């Protein structure tokens, strides 16, 4: 068992599962640090995956596919931004409606474009950077040489820096913690909230792109709850990019372990519960206190 866990194949599988969680989860951090609750991550991932497949299929270029996926995610996030920030409607209900909308619209267009209610045609995958030293294990080499894996690692580290060490990050956190104070010193509250939601759209869209390339096609509902796991990881990681990424890695590790140990050990379903139960425990304050940004989910009403 230990040798199985220490194998490169196991590491590769853990990374493969963790990447889409981490991208969406860090997207959630940006949105919520800016004060907008984002349950719509699930729907954004789904539209991101769908647009990636459509873009790649019609142009044959994975790069165009990624651009389409990111744009799709961004557009979906913008709906959430308009409803939450401009109209100031309930952000949680907006998120749920968007998730429902994403399931409907992707299947609707899937049937029109691919004449199937369940899956699209096959698309090409991402090209990978050659990794000489492990080429004897092609699966692992492909994964570690995948530009999106490298990009994800860069995004995790950069996000930690951006949110806690830059002027942009400070302002974003300010509008999420105390919008009145931020407004007083001249920060455009709604603009920064837009930035937060838009970045979450881009990152969750990328998460969807990963899933699309990983599977080489779109299948209906393929986000399969990943947006909610990303949300869970964001909370367990206490709204920090590094923390969220670490939580994603933990969840990815558990899932990977479950795949390795299939047949033996714990039943699948109990491994599946780990992220959710971990979140409940953390929220209840049993392991440190998880405190959301103070104005998270509260629309900002400017004083007249």
């Amino acid at each position, binding site marked *: 068992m230990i040798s199985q866990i220490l194998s490169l194949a196991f590491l590769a599988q853990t990374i493969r599962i963790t990447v889409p969680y981490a991208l969406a989860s860090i997207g959630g951090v940006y949105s919520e640090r800016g004060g907008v609750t984002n349950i719509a991550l699930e729907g954004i991932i789904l539209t991101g995956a769908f647009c990636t497949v459509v873009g790649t299929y019609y142009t044959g270029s994975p790069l165009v596919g990624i651009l389409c996926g990111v744009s799709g995610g961004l557009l979906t996030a913008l709906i959430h931004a308009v409803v939450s920030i401009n109209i100031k409607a309930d952000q949680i209900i907006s998120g749920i409606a968007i998730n429902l909308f994403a399931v409907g619209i992707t299947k609707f267009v899937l049937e029109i474009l691919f004449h199937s209610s369940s899956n699209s045609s096959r698309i090409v995958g991402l090209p990978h950077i050659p990794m000489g030293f492990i080429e004897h294990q092609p699966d692992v080499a492909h994964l570690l040489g995948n530009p999106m894996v490298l990009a994800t690692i860069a995004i995790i580290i950069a996000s930690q820096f951006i949110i806690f060490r830059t002027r942009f990050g400070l302002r974003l956190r300010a509008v999420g913690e105390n919008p009145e104070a931020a407004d007083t010193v001249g920060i455009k509250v709604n603009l920064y909230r837009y930035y937060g939601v838009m970045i979450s759209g881009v990152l969750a869209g990328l998460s969807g792109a990963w899933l699309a390339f990983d599977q080489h096609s779109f299948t209906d509902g393929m986000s399969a709850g990943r947006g909610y796991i990303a949300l869970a990881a964001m909370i367990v990681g206490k709204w920090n990019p590094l923390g969220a990424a670490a939580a994603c890695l933990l969840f990815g590790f558990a899932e990977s372990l479950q795949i390795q140990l299939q047949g033996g050990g714990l039943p699948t379903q109990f491994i599946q519960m780990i992220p959710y139960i971990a979140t*409940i425990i953390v929220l209840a304050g049993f392991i440190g206190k998880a405190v959301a940004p103070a104005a998270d989910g509260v629309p900002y009403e400017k004083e007249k």
Partner: protein
Amino acid sequence: MAEKRHWLEHSITQNFFVPVLAVVLSFAVGAIFIAIVGQNPIEVYYVLFSQTLGNEYGIGQLLFKTTPLIFAGLSVAICFKAGLFNIGAEGQLQIGAFATALVGMYTFGVPAFIEIPLLVLAGIVGGGIWGFIPGYLKAKTGAHEVINTIMLNFVALALVSYFATNIYNVPATVHTPSIAPTGRIPRFDVFFSGFEGSPVNFSILIAIVAAIFVWYYIDRTRPGYELRVVGLNAKAAEFGGINVARNLILSMTIGGALAGLVGTNYVMGYKYYFEEGFSTGTGFMGIAVALLGNNNPFGVILAALLFGMLEYGGLVINTMVPKELVSILQAIVIIFVISSNKIFRKTLVNYMKTRTLSVNQ
């Protein structure tokens, strides 16, 4: 003169106008989608309405889809009244329905007048426990019920999946054995042959009784009054001597119990067993139903009828447009309701302000 009020100020206008407008607008947007596919929106909508409302079979299918939506809608609505957002109806109804099936498969030989209430109670207890957990966590640790109910949905799904596919299943299936025959709720077609073939059953009466209960409890009893006060202003309630924690726990528990009754429709009235994946997002749709019904129990019934019609309607129009059209319609209804609630309230406030100014002048 003081009696004369602007039409926007009437609560009836607000309660009906916003939902109806939202539905009409969503159908208008839906028409665009239909046109994109190259179909005639009027024809598609004609088929949608005539096939669901035009014959007893269609009505039977519609009512069958409506029943669980009433339970889920009431579940969300009663929690809303206490200021809580129950996104956990999906998990609560899974646990409740599973509990119903589980008790039903072990209680053969019990007469119907005991067995039916017993299985209903099992659903109430199962769902109630699953609602109690986030209520308790909210009251005791302040943990946000939105996140906890989302997480508990997944825990519930995994739990029933494990038990319904590994432990209590009929070999090689993902469903439990049948419940005792005395626990079955009869279908409409036993008494009215027009409903022949449609799965609608008398559990819809339980749903209506549940709606009346919620109305009576909220509007006419002291605990219901306390619950509303907590929902309106928890701090004021605490100050006025109301036990806020107890009310939070109670409302989530009742909400869970209401969702747990979904099993009466599927397990007791339709398949007579619990099957993995029997609910396709009913709990989430309950949020839309509660919203459209303005958290009023009778509004919930009307909204559930509409959403029930759409759910069955998707299958009816599937040859003309992809049936996902109805998911899109449902999502747009939700967005329009939450948006227009905000926009109308603002318009109203502005109107009152300008009127006050003109009166003062």
